[in-house]
């Protein structure tokens, strides 16, 4: 069997596809292979379930973070102030 088109994938590859699919970056073929893998691999089923849960939680949390540029601006302002105080 050629390695590339093998429909049976390793757990490492399954986890990789699972991660990608959390960000909608997995191709359809990859997702099919993942589904097949999940049929017989209990550990990956569990991982996949938790991973999906994490994605859902992250989406619900409405966490907002400073963009890198915003943080840099904050940092440089703060450093100026810090220099003044020393």
């Amino acid at each position, binding site marked *: 069997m050629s390695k590339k088109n093998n429909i049976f994938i390793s757990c490492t590859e399954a*986890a*990789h596809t699972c*991660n*990608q699919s*959390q*960000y909608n*970056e997995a191709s359809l073929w990859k997702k099919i292979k993942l589904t097949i893998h999940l049929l017989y691999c209990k550990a990956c089923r569990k*991982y996949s379930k*938790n*991973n999906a*849960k*994490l994605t859902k*939680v*992250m989406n*619900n*949390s*409405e*966490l*907002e*973070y*400073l*963009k*890198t540029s*915003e*943080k840099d601006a*904050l*940092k440089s*302002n*703060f450093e100026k*102030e*810090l220099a003044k*105080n020393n």
Partner: protein
Amino acid sequence: MINTEMPKHQINPNKWIDLYSDYLFNYTITRVRDRDTAQDLVQDTFFAGLKSMKNFKGEASERTWLISILKRKIIDHYRKINSKKGKAEVRVNFSSDSDNEGDWIEQRVADPFDKTAEDNLENKELGLAIHNCLGKLSEKQAQVFKMKTMLGYETDAICNELNITASNLWVIIHRARTTLASCLEENWF
């Protein structure tokens, strides 16, 4: 005396931005709902903290101490908006002497175990549970995970900015997600 057994916290403003800016920003944005205002308030908080550093007694952690300053900034912010609108205003004189800023605050939040009733309440908020779990990641993992998940950067953009390959990125993401999922499993799910 219990006081003598209290763990002493150190203060080091050089690391404040890296350690606390996201936490403070997130805390603020859930309360003021405006990015620009939130950024200003966070910056004001850091400046005020810097000014009143000498009043830090090490009885609360830096983060708790900064949050207590931030809370006051948020209250001030709303009071300002309120008085602009010409509405009734409640004046509470926290402290007129700005030299003492940060002093009264610590007395109210000081807690030897850094786990106040309020902290427990805050932890019930999902966002903060996530934040605490993010603290368990390495700096790189947290950075990549935040960019990918919260800020919605494209994979390519992150790779360029951090100078890593796509497979590096996915390994980092994988480790971050595994750690986060098990951390949240313990503390939240």
